[in-house]
């Protein structure tokens, strides 16, 4: 049993403390925008924000996330107003299959909070998510566009 604060809502989840946050979010809370890709923090599909920082939720036990502010892709927009990263993604038509994009968007949103006008080198260092469709060219364009927004 753990109490989690997800997208501003406080929730009880009935899982063992070692359960990865990813699976508590997907299977207990029912928010499936956060994806399972590898389970070992390699691909970044499961990226969420914990207290504003991007983390790979597949390797964070629920016990480590209790009491902190967790934001998932579903909580990024404010009502129907898209976050500037989502807006840039829409304008630049970034997603192909889209499976990795929630994690990619969450990673970029955190990067921009830290570095509002990232250089290409800072993007290279900060964004290490895997995208098998290969959307990187549009991802980079959209990051720069979001930074200007």
């Amino acid at each position, binding site marked *: 049993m753990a109490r989690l604060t997800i997208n501003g809502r406080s929730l009880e989840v009935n*899982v*063992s403390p070692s*359960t*990865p946050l990813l*699976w508590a979010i*997907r*299977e*207990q809370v*029912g*928010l*499936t*925008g*956060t*994806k*399972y*890709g*590898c*389970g*070992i923090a*390699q*691909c970044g*599909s499961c990226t969420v924000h914990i207290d504003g920082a991007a983390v790979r939720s597949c390797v964070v036990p629920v016990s480590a996330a209790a009491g902190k502010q967790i934001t*998932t*892709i*579903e909580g*990024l*927009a404010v009502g129907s107003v*898209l976050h500037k990263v*989502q807006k840039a*993604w*829409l304008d630049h*038509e970034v*997603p*192909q*299959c*889209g*499976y*990795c*994009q*929630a994690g990619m*968007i969450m990673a970029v949103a955190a990067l921009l909070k830290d570095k509002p006008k990232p250089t290409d080198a800072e*993007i*290279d*260092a900060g*964004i*290490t*998510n*895997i*995208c*098998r*469709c*290969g*959307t*990187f*060219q*549009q*991802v*980079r364009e959209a990051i720069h566009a979001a930074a200007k927004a």
Partner: protein
Amino acid sequence: MITITPKIDRRSFIIGTAAVGGGLALGLNIPFGGRVVRAQGGAPEVTHWVVIRPDDTVVIRIARSEMGQGTLTGLAQMVAEELECDWSKVTTEYPTPGQSVARKRIWGDFSTGGSRGIRSSQEYVRQGGATARTMLIQAAADAWKVPASECSAADSVITHRPSGRTTTYGKVAEAAAKLTPPTNVPLKDPKDWKLIGKSVKRLDTMDKLTGTQVYGADLKLPGMLNAAIKDCPVFGGKVKSFEPAKVKGMPGVRHVVPVGDSAVAVVADTWWEAKTALDALPIVWDEGPNAKVSSATIAEMLKEGLSADQAFVANQNGDVKAAIAGAAKKIEAVYAYPFQNHAPMEPMNATARYTADRCEVWVPTQNGEGAFAATLAASGLPADKCEVYKIHPGGGFGRRVAHHDYVTQAVLIAKQMPGTPVKLLWTREEDMLHGKYHPVMQCKLVGAFDAANNLTGLHMRLSGQSILSDVRPEALQQGKDPLVFQGLNPSGEFAIGYSVPNLLIDHAMRNTHVPPGFWRGVNINQNAIFLECFLDELAHAAGQDPLEFRRKLMSKHPKHLAVLNAVADRAGWGKPAPQRVFRGLAQMMSFNSYVAACAEISVSGGNKIKVHRIVAATDCGYAVNPAQIERQIAGSFVYGLSGLFMEECTVKDGRIEQTNFNSYDSMRIAQMPKVESIIMPSGGFWGGVGEPTICVAAPAVLNAFFAATGKRIRTVPLKNHGITLV
């Protein structure tokens, strides 16, 4: 009943699918006499491709699968072009395979592979739009009691030209649906296209930005349980024994079941509980006859084929043996390409619900009909008692097109708990160990020159695996697998772009126990490396510029030459490159498109490659949505360069050694080159887009590496040579 649409929200999705499971039969009114076929919600089908709702919403049916490549939008553009509807009112839905079978395959082929989505259905989907437009206009003319020839349609509005009267598609759709569809409605001349050729926005972007898009792994059904599975890690092995009692008491565990004779699944309330229990479950495998096979034994088998007497011939002219025997100079090289896993971001999954008289499957698939066939076979039920609901895959790349092993497994699990829906999701590890791998291939090439350094002969001997002999043996041609020769054929959609006076291209088929599959680009990936790198070797051996050397062999292949010239011109071939930057070229005909690339790289420390830019040209005949073609080109290079630098599945003790992205890497944004696309559709034919360009990435980079270092690399991946992509 069409219940799954790409834009449907999760709540209505569940309600919709549950309603189908509630026994409402197929939910479709199959027309007899003048009855109208209705989609869910009651809106009439004008043709089977087009449903129009009273509010003027146009629902376009898409039989192919959208897995990121944009085919959903492209196919909708094709229908809408002829329909003359308001593009802003277009939405799409997948017909189900069960409905298609019940209606004599009215939607044609569902298979979404071979870059065929648009090119092999373009004519009949445009016809579907044109027929519907004709019927809508006729219905309006009938209501107005005027000749249809006095009416025209644009943006979903029908106008009676003499009187100026107007109506909308939504108002006449009901009457139009009752009309007998006309046949052979003429299609527009391409010069009159307004929507085809335009970079309209994709129809499926928004839900992918907000977490709303439901993938197979995300599916929820009432009362659903979750399954995790382990199949024998040695291909061809079986389960000897397992001990359910050891895990039955673990949290959430409901069932521990055998799946066929080679796998075991744990079924639990949540997937994490199922996976946790499966990890704790003792399983003893009977590893079978392949437990000693290794990459080395496979390589030995292929090596033998390089000089074997028997081989299937695909392309032959002149007398290559005589040309080589009489050569003033002879060049020889051996190349090799490894097993590779597709590794789509969404691991394999399927959800099944079985009862004695109905079996339903929800699955991300590239081929709804393939999933349907697997459902029938595994359930043992006839077609009218089965249904498959397609879900957009989180990547496919060929893994989800010819193989539905995960569907078979899901049904076999669900059969053991009738009435309960079960979602089977593979771990990444299971996905890596049970792929349908890019086939292994070796190639020995021999080139012959006369005293004037003219290329007089070329022999390419392929040795390795046949996909078709494993997947569709009935498609072999007297034992020969024609797909092995992609890019090397004398003619057709994979024609070689060179004329050599004495030529022989043949294949010694050497199959392995590792199951092969169609990996994005398929066999042209290795053939492009073999041919285009070896041509580079020959050019250098003859002391000639690689572009000029190629051009001399291409005079009878103007479309191949045009794309090659285009990249050479744009990249500035023959002009000085930036300091320490070196260029390499490649061209192929691939999936009926002509493609070429010029890569610009620099090499530091002898082994760190930076790919600065790739100029890529494609002539796909007609370019339906140029913005999406650009994205496919850039994306295909991510797949191709990941394959070139990083990806190999090695075999030890009969099983694949790589289990996750830490041992099977994939490109990141830092490694992404700038990709400049030249889209140069020359018209008159339809070429593919999703796969063709992938094959030129690797040889262009390898040829640039030779230009930079004088070192020729002939085996993939480059990590085995200590070379990294930076």
